[in-house]
């Protein structure tokens, strides 16, 4: 069997797949922390135990994600761009565009008919339009991440959020709250602003079917905001937070087979 470890900025995810590359034997995730390699190691051991397998059964391990270079147990590393594309393609075979919004960055991958990445775009260096941005907004409004979707659904008039910088947006939200703007309008405005940023990345090249993955895909309302901004359907990937680790495991298998 093969393993993929996605050391993201907010969580570490592990997926273990069988030799056939179709069966997921076990998977798990843990919040990211200071001692990333140890966290990953413990999670990996836990996933092995959940799957009832030994370390020696795992033929190859690929690490991906922001912290991929700090996972010593991995045989190699592959970027999250390639891994998410492979993971999503495995789950949604006809996908042509993958939108991945994680804790720290957002990406858009255009695939070819064979499922290979044709081109990609990634947000700039800051946390603008990412999960971290949503966390800051939720904190400021006294909400949990899970509250954001239901709250946004109540909005009849989303606020215009002009700044995608976390620091400036905080100031802007304080101003909106002081001006009596309802929280639901602010949340809906933030989701719309994030979606607009993705559209800017996509340009005129977002081909359908479009699949949304990454941790932020689990926050309800985001896919609606993306659909509205893109003007076409956006499907949420099955298990969006795990697609990077799944892709890494699938690539581990491919690499092993090619040796």
């Amino acid at each position: 069997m093969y393993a993929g470890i996605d050391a993201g900025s907010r969580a570490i995810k592990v997926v273990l797949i069988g030799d056939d590359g179709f069966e997921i034997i076990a998977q798990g995730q843990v919040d990211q922390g200071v001692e990333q390699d140890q966290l990953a190691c413990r999670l990996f051991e836990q996933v092995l135990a959940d799957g009832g397998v030994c370390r020696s059964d795992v033929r190859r391990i690929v690490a991906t994600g922001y912290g991929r270079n700090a996972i010593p147990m991995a045989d190699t590393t592959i970027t999250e761009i390639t891994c998410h594309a492979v993971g999503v393609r495995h789950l949604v075979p006809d996908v042509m565009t993958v939108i991945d919004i994680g804790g720290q960055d957002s990406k858009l991958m255009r695939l070819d008919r064979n499922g290979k990445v044709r081109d990609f775009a990634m947000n700039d260096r800051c946390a603008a339009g990412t999960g971290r941005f949503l966390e800051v907004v939720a904190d400021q409004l006294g909400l949990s991440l899970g509250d954001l979707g239901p709250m946004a659904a109540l909005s009849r008039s989303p606020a215009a959020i002009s700044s995608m910088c976390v620091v400036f947006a905080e100031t802007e939200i304080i101003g909106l709250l002081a001006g009596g703007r309802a929280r639901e309008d602010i949340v809906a405005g933030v989701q719309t602003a994030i979606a607009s940023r993705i559209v800017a990345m996509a340009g005129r090249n977002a081909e359908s079917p479009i699949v949304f993955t990454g941790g932020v895909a689990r926050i309800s309302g985001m896919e609606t905001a993306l659909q509205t901004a893109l003007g076409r359907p956006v499907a949420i990937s099955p298990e969006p937070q795990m697609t990077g680790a799944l892709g890494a495991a699938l690539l581990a298998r491919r690499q092993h087979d090619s040796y």
Partner: protein
Amino acid sequence: MNEAPRQITLREWDDRYERLQTRGVRQPVYGGPLGRHVADGDTRLLKLRYDSSLAALRLWNFLLTEEDRLRAARDAGKKLVGTMKDLGTVPVMAYSLDNLVAFYPDGAWWIPCVMEVNSGLLQIADSLGIDESFCPVRAMLGAFVTGTHFPIPDLLTCSVGATCDDFSAIAQRLNGLGHPILWWEIPHRRAPEVEEEAVQLPGDFSAPKGQIEFVQSELERVKTALEDLAGQSLGAEALAGGIAKANHVRWLLAQLRHLAFTATLCPMPALEMLIAEMLAIHFCSDQDETIVVLQELLEEVNLRVAAGTGYSSADAARVFWVNPVADLQVMNFLEDCGGRICGTEYLFAHALDPIPQTVPPMEALAQIALADPMVGSAADRAVRIVAEVRRFGAEAVIVSRIPGASHCALEGEIIGEIVRQECGLPVLEIEVPPLTDAMSPTLRTRLEALVETVENRRSR
């Protein structure tokens, strides 16, 4: 070439330098161990990796001693001309006169990188109202105020018009600080109307004859100022000779680029190639020495190609790079991530084209000035990039944005779209500030992902 090429650290270079010295290897007058530049405050040099050849050592020492050489030139009675926002036109005139040395104050944009923002130049620019919303070339203002990075020139020229808005603002601020500037206008290059006489320019551009005549008249004003400063006139014959010499530099660079970008194994790293190309625009204050430096580099590259040695593997991703980077370290990342340089367009492609020698010299300079990719549309620039991408067989394109640079706001999208459409290649846009340390993991991820994308596309 005695050894296989390697990329080595500055400390490794200094050790190597010591060994070479004991073997009696001779260095030019500005030569020496690279480590001495760190003592001058250029701490970023400790983080770079350098080509291990003597030719590369000479290139680096040439670059890093420019200030000393300029001061020595002044002491020797030469007059200094600061040619701002000029990518390879006025220096050709200046070097056609015996006692003028032209240099490029805009080159100060690398000082915040090389000195890791400890130079204080950006803070001075801030204090003058030229803040970080401007291109890092604003460091030039600080250099003029402190007078510590280059001598204050005897004459300052600056092109204006269809050039960077922020550079014009910076230069205007400089003018206001008591550094008088001789402005010369360059219009936005446009396609000729049906009824207008068209002139074919280098780079496959064309422009109305009227625009050429206008630029020529502007350059005549600059020529007069240079003659006044030099105390001698610049005749057509002398200028033709200067053009021939500039063309020799361009020819050397053309050979170097062709070999570096087309050899099976990349014979010279991206960083050294960037520095070498930069010599085209102002000769790093010494045209004769530029020729020697480039000849040595070319010789080294020829030997490597003949020996089949170089950097990277034969299947390294072949990357075309658009725009120079404010942080030199990023060029090292390309090889780290499995790529190799395979074509460049660092905003001065016209300075690599031969200056026409079949028309009168002033007209030729006007033509080359109007062939500047910066003075036309981004779409025009993209067309030239597409041609070069095809010529060198690049597999991906990186458009590197310069924070604050007005031309970077939209050009990346236009260039990206045209390259994708015409070549079907992946295009990656990145932003490179003077120091990328905080963002280097994400920057590397993008470069690695680009290399993976190229590899995956090959296996389709």
